């Protein structure tokens, strides 16, 4: 089966830093794909390049048969690629519901903004401004906003940020559930190894902008290159 998303030989530099260095990987339709790597490996940059916030210096990105690099940034979500942000990028003065409605405006999903708030368990906060809500709650609002556009591909940048151990377990089940409910493909960036290894069909590993490994969670966990990369940055192995 052809991949839903193909990243082909993508390079992105920031001054002297090579954030992505000839990176290629495929995300097959219907899978949950993990993208891991130590801090600064280039995971968020990969998301920013795929969603057209950054232009790559080299390479190609093909989504569902379309050359994404010819798609303007505001059309990416209309094509069917929605994302969340590592540090949350919501609109603080807008109500929680309005935040989600903007997602629904872009490309009407199957469910309304109200239904999506219900789905992520935040109906009670619909008319509150997003400002001042706890980080974990904001992450759920972002998820609802992304789902509101009825995406084929969902890019999640550290969705477990700000969650405790128990909540991380719930999040794993939640992501598996939403793949089924929304018929979506998921590309997941996460530092919680148990979460990534537990729910991903396949995992890619970045280190210093290079793709150093890829395969099933078992294969990747046994890969000496991966162990080496994480021992070099023990803090991220937790």
């Amino acid at each position: 089966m052809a991949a839903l998303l193909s990243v082909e030989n993508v390079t992105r530099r920031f001054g002297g830093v090579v954030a992505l260095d000839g990176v290629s990987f495929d995300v097959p339709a219907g899978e949950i794909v993990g993208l891991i790597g130590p801090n600064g490996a280039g995971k968020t940059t990969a998301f920013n390049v795929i969603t057209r916030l950054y232009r790559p210096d080299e390479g190609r990105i093909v989504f569902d048969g379309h050359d994404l690099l010819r798609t303007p940034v505001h059309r990416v979500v209309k094509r069917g690629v929605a994302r969340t942000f590592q540090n949350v990028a919501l609109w603080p003065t807008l109500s929680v519901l309005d935040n989600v409605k903007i997602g629904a405006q872009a490309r009407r999903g199957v469910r309304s903004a109200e239904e999506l708030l219900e789905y992520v368990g935040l109906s009670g906060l619909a008319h509150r401004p997003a400002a001042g809500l706890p980080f974990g709650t904001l992450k759920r609002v972002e998820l609802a906003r992304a789902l509101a556009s009825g995406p084929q591909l969902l890019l999640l940048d550290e969705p477990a940020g700000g969650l405790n151990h128990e909540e991380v377990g719930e999040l794993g089940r939640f992501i598996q559930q939403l793949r089924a409910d929304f018929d979506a493909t998921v590309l997941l960036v996460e530092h919680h190894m148990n979460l990534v290894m537990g729910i991903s069909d396949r995992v890619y590993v970045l280190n210093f902008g290079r793709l150093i490994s890829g395969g099933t969670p078992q294969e990747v966990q046994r890969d000496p290159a991966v162990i080496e990369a994480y021992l070099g940055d023990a803090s991220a192995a937790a």
Partner: protein
Amino acid sequence: MTAFRYALRVFGFVLFVAIVVYLPFRISDFRASEFALIGIYFIAILGLNVLTGYTGVISLGHGAFMALGAYTTAILVADHGMRDLWTIPLAGLLAAAAGAAFGLPALRLSGPYLALTTFGVAVATPIVIKKFDGLTGGSGGINLFEAEGITGLPEFIVTLPGGKVLSFNDWLYYLAWTIALVLFAVAWAIHHSHFGRSLRAIRDNEIAAAASGVWLASHKTLAFSISAFYAGVAGSLLAIWAFSVQPGAFPVDRSIALLVGLAVGGLGSLAPLAAGAAFLVFLPQLAQGISKAPGVPAVIYGAVLIALMIVLPMGVGGLLRWITGPLTSRLYPRS
């Protein structure tokens, strides 16, 4: 909850309209002229609010679009014998076109640089007007006292059944406020539309807006154009109100005053912006009333403005939200 708040809004609007209709019956002819001016400023501030309040783009040059609207009306009425009323939408549309033409390239600039560009436009406006004196009458401007197209002149006095004499100033008042209320309703519709929501998203976080499908360039340009339309209509009314236009009527101060009125009314508010417009008309008078010594009124104006921004950082609109906020959430607790 939403139904209750909706009813509250409708009631508020009806009350607002009733006050507007009734006011001339209670105030002097001179005051009616002042309140007409408030209506004119209200229109311009409503427009600036679409750009600055919703979209977060600061314009220091909206006086230029007022000037464009004012001169459009003056030239069409004085030189082409057009009826003043018909020139009002034309003035708005011309300003809207100019706004789009200016906004399209300028909106690529980020915050401070864009603000400086608009400031440049404001500075250049009186000079440009004087330069094209064949069209604009140069420094002397255009006089509309003799023009035939001014509705209701020379003798506009109607006696209503109740014995109320409707003067020419009353006519100006109703003209300005009818248009203001219509454009207020339009602004309200924008506020609650997908488009308005997208504008506020741009203001809060541009990158998130773009990544969520909002086309920044088209939204910003349209916001700029809409706000220029409002300014053009206000300028047109100002020409009719003053019976004249001169380059001196559109100094940089006029653009700054609109921002002051917007801040006092409350960025992103709607009805409270009328308070900002009233502030622009009455505060200078108040300052003059306290002392006419050279420089003193300006100092008083500045001091009051600073004090107001400290006490009401979100303007009158913020104050109203603060007063009504706890009440509505007490009636309808949400969590």
